[in-house]
């Protein structure tokens, strides 16, 4: 359906290069904040900087160094592990919540607003909320677990810390996936459900053959956004655990900040930031192309709608 719609839409567009005049203010504004800092980072990554006036051109040396740096490799692996866990939990849970949401009346509005709450809280406040909530002495969550006899302490046990960060992220962002899916579900015409009823389709069949296919678009957006944001997570774990205990919750952007600001190793940090940027870009691009490709061949088979 979408493939055809998009195709039709692009066919309708008029070629007109004067449209650049409409885009130009936006382009200049974003370019100011995007291109100049990016070029500065590229510049850092090619030089050895001692202070403001002393810098040597070192070429690709930093790139060679960071690609061999085991600390960065570890943190990259932790990052992939974390993002993968985030996606594996939040996407199915988000779909489930969307299916459970009431569809009309005041309950629908109330649930929408309550679900949107975690999304509207500043990220360091999210960290603070969980820092307090998960503490064994003054936090409800940690206190309850301890009283149930679970030996839980996120400041000293690395596994607990990691799980707490994951739980916090699930709390913070599952709503986004749920709200995306909810809007996708609302767009399914009633006729589909009536047809399913006549066919006596089981709830599972309704989900598998009616709801899930229509959710594909919003799920693509959801997976992309969740991948990008969880891959760049910084503020929340920084406030909650400070990256510890040890390095168990030190994710990639925190390692880079430590390098750049803590140790003033700007060159390697910049070089790895660019590698990092390319990884995010590459994964997003591969995912997006695969999905569009699948959609195309799907439409080729059906060629109705």
């Amino acid at each position: 359906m979408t493939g055809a719609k998009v195709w039709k839409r692009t066919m309708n567009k008029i070629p007109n290069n004067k449209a650049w005049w409409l885009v130009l203010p936006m382009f200049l504004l974003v370019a100011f904040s995007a291109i100049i800092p990016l070029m500065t980072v590229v510049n850092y990554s090619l030089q050895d900087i001692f202070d403001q006036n002393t810098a040597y051109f070192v070429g690709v040396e930093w790139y060679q160094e960071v690609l061999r740096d085991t600390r960065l490799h570890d943190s990259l692996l932790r990052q992939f592990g974390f993002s993968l866990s985030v996606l594996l939990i939040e996407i199915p849970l988000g779909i489930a919540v969307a299916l459970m949401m009431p569809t009309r009346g005041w309950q629908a509005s109330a649930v929408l607003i309550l679900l949107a709450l975690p999304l509207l809280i500043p990220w360091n406040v999210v960290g603070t909320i969980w820092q307090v909530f998960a503490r064994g002495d003054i936090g409800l969550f940690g206190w309850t677990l301890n009283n149930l006899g679970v030996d839980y302490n996120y400041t000293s046990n690395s596994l607990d810390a990691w799980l707490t960060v994951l739980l916090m992220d699930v709390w913070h962002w599952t709503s986004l996936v749920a709200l995306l899916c909810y809007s996708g579900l609302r767009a399914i015409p009633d006729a589909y459900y009536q047809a399913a009823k006549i066919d006596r389709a089981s709830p599972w069949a309704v989900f598998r053959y009616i709801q899930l296919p229509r959710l594909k678009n919003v799920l693509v957006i959801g997976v992309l956004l969740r991948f990008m944001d969880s891959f760049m997570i910084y503020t929340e774990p920084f406030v909650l655990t400070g990256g510890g205990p040890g390095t168990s919750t030190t994710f990639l952007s925190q390692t880079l900040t430590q390098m750049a600001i803590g140790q003033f190793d700007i060159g390697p940090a910049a070089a790895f930031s660019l590698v990092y940027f390319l990884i995010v870009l590459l994964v997003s691009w591969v995912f997006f192309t695969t999905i569009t490709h699948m959609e195309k061949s799907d439409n080729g088979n059906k060629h109705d709608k």
Partner: protein
Amino acid sequence: MATNMISKRNLGMFMYLIFVLLPIYWLLNMSFKTNDEILGQLTLWPTDFTLNNYITIFTDASWYMGYVNSMTYVAMNLVITLLVSLPAAYAFSRYKFVGDKHLFFWLLSNRMAPPAVFLLPFFQLYSSVGLFDTHLAVALAHCLFTVPLAVWILEGFMSGVPKEIDETAYIDGYSFGHFFIKIFIPMISSGIGVTAFFTFMFSWVELLLARTLTSVDAKPISAIMTRTVGATGIDWGVLAAAGVLTIIPGILVVWFVRNHVAKGFALGRV
């Protein structure tokens, strides 16, 4: 069997809402307690109810100015974002032009740059143009991720408006500007509401850039909150009260767009 299904569904929804609300309730609960009670024993609701934490914030300019600063740059960012995104989204939804696809992808790729190391160049850039520690600096820096999102959402909504309307308006002798402001913008008002919601959301929750680009005059509330860690330990009550106050603007904004949120979360393209 049908009622059984529905009650199971409601139960699941109820459990999830508890999960969402419990941490927020805990913060709210703490904000009404004295520090002695917070650290003394665990109480499920404030037994020694106090408003002192809130009074501290509302009577101290260095606290409440943080909220004013945050609101100011979020509002500025909103205005700038809408002003530049509306024409750009119109161009993307109606015309084909040299480099349109690349431009669109480049826009979206700005959301993928890891912020941590880009902080230093941002600081240098805004210092060198004399904008450091102004609301405008934060508003402009936030445009980096709000503008691409706004263009994306608006383009979705605008593509839903049939092109015949534009053509009819031009035949009737409307100029582009007149048509755009008088006819087109009212037609996509719900899209603009949703865009405003998302722009607000991402600008309000961002901390790293806002903290880096300000020092005193434009310091956001989220950065001021770190102040509660003092020599005598953390002032938990005030910290909780400050946190609660950062949630309120979000509630107000989501209340205004609640009827459009369902369509909006699909970014106008279901």
